[in-house]
């Protein structure tokens, strides 16, 4: 009796499981077609000599070797790390500061929040083209017009080797910082105001309250956003593609842009393009692993 019931029960359970998987099937099929299979396929393709969409023959690591031995790869790799460095320098602390400032305002808070979020809604491509007019080296470039009011002669910006990556990062930060600031604001709103009151009674000034209460409260969030920022900057591609075409002299060429060039830049070398993609994936995986390692250690201490 008992076993019969259990059997019937487990039969119903199996049916329920089956139906549940059936409900998830369309979504899983799409994930497979658009995300998982292409990821595995790019690993396979990186090991083959390709002609257009055909895999001609297995060549082991030859694609990797030939990609890595080209000068533009070293340049793109260095540039990509340079993008990451500048992005952390310019774009990491700024949203925290913005959140801190806007969080302290009383009147107009929702206006400030709305206004700083606006650039994030604009299409990334349109933003890049719009800013190209700002940094144009012509007399009509907006920055040159503004500097002209201070009697500074027109400069050229995007053709300067040392300026081009910081400029692209400034544009990306202009677009994204406000949205990130709102995430920090939500994190900061989680601090109980009584803590500030208590600290004030103990004689802690505003600066010390920020340093000892507010910032520790968002430390974990900042860690998560840091790694997400690194991962997203590492894939920077269309920004230099549209703004500078990777120039001047490959000074802004990124790894993902190199991948795009191999695949769609005329040569249609999908094998080599996949080799670059696999290298980027590996670097991203290593970074994620390092992050989760430190994250786990930190949770152990808590």
């Amino acid at each position, binding site marked *: 009796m008992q076993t019969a019931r259990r059997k019937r029960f487990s039969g119903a359970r199996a049916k329920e499981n089956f139906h*549940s998987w059936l409900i*998830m099937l369309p979504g899983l099929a799409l994930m497979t077609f658009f995300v998982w299979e292409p990821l595995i396929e790019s690993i396979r393709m990186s090991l083959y000599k390709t002609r257009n969409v055909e895999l001609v023959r297995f060549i082991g690591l030859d694609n990797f070797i030939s990609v890595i031995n080209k000068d533009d790869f070293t340049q793109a790799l260095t540039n990509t790390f340079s993008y990451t460095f500048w992005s952390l320098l310019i774009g990491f602390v700024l949203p925290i500061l913005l959140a801190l400032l806007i969080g302290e305002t009383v009147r107009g808070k929702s206006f400030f929040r709305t206004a700083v979020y606006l650039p994030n809604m604009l299409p990334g491509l349109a933003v890049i*083209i719009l800013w190209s007019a700002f940094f144009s080296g012509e007399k009509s470039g907006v920055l040159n017009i503004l500097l002209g009011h201070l009697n500074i002669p027109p400069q050229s910006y995007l053709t300067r080797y040392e300026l081009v990556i910081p400029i692209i990062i400034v544009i990306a930060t202009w677009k994204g910082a406000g949205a990130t600031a709102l995430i920090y604001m939500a994190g900061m709103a989680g601090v109980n105001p009584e803590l500030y009151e208590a600290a004030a009674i103990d004689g802690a000034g505003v600066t010390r309250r920020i340093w000892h209460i507010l910032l520790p409260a968002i430390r974990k969030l900042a860690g998560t956003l840091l790694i997400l920022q690194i991962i997203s900057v590492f894939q920077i591609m269309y920004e230099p593609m549209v703004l500078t075409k990777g120039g001047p002299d490959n000074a802004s060429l990124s790894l993902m842009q190199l991948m795009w060039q191999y695949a769609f830049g005329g040569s249609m070398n999908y094998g080599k393009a996949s080799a670059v993609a696999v290298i980027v994936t590996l670097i991203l995986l290593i970074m994620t692993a390092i992050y989760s390692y430190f994250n786990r250690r930190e949770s152990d201490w808590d």
Partner: protein
Amino acid sequence: MTSIRRTGVIREYDMHASSVRFGYGLIIFLCILTVIIAVFPLIWVILAGFKDLKEFVSSPAILPRSLDPEPFMTTWNQLGIARNYLNSLISVAGSVVCALIFNGLLGYGIGILKPRGYRIVKRLIMVSMLMPTTISIVPLFMNIQNLNLGNSFVPLWLSYGANAMYVILFIQFFESLPSSIIEASRIDGCNQLQIFFRIVLPLSKPICAVIAIFAVNAAWSDFLLPYLVLRGGELQTVMVRLFVFSTEQTVNADTMMRAVVFSMIPPIILFFIFQKQLTENTVSVGIKG
């Protein structure tokens, strides 16, 4: 003094100190400065659109000579953007529907139904969120070509049904729903699909709204995969056209700025309608992720 309570680090009594009052003034100044920096480029590009080519390259003034909308009309007709707007509209509509249905059902399976082995799928989706889709754009494009789906909206629509971030947002929302409601309807004899459409979906309006807004904006702004799939054909969207202009440099600088303005109008409208959801709701959702 004020009816609104201070919620930040600075408390009401701090304002008695003149140094804090000065600091607060500085904060307001910096906030206003930030707003100007955030909004100025947008206002500039709209104003620049009123200039013709000669004025655009030669005049150092930010303000155009006249506010006659003529140049916008000319560009609109000359580039035939109406057609691209229609294409974008169709592309966005299908993408939103796919984003809600497919990611929603997958999220429902993982967040509520939890069949045997669902954890593997959940883990896979978590990892996929960190892996960018552009990284595998080459094999994806080959797959689409092999299935003869080039020059069609279908692959673009369906690509929005496979978004790891949307799935995770759905899962987090569904897991926060009280399980008693779902248990009760299960005892009442509803099957899983009935539970989804009668119980879960009506409760999920907030998350559906958030994901719909995200998907509208993402699908409108998207141009890499759309470019590969639609290039050269009749179905090009506004963003694909803009990308082609920017790479081939076939249009003048002033026309380009007007095309940029056209591409920004729908997101700006969306922003003004949904600013409350965008600046409050999404953040509270995003924070958990």
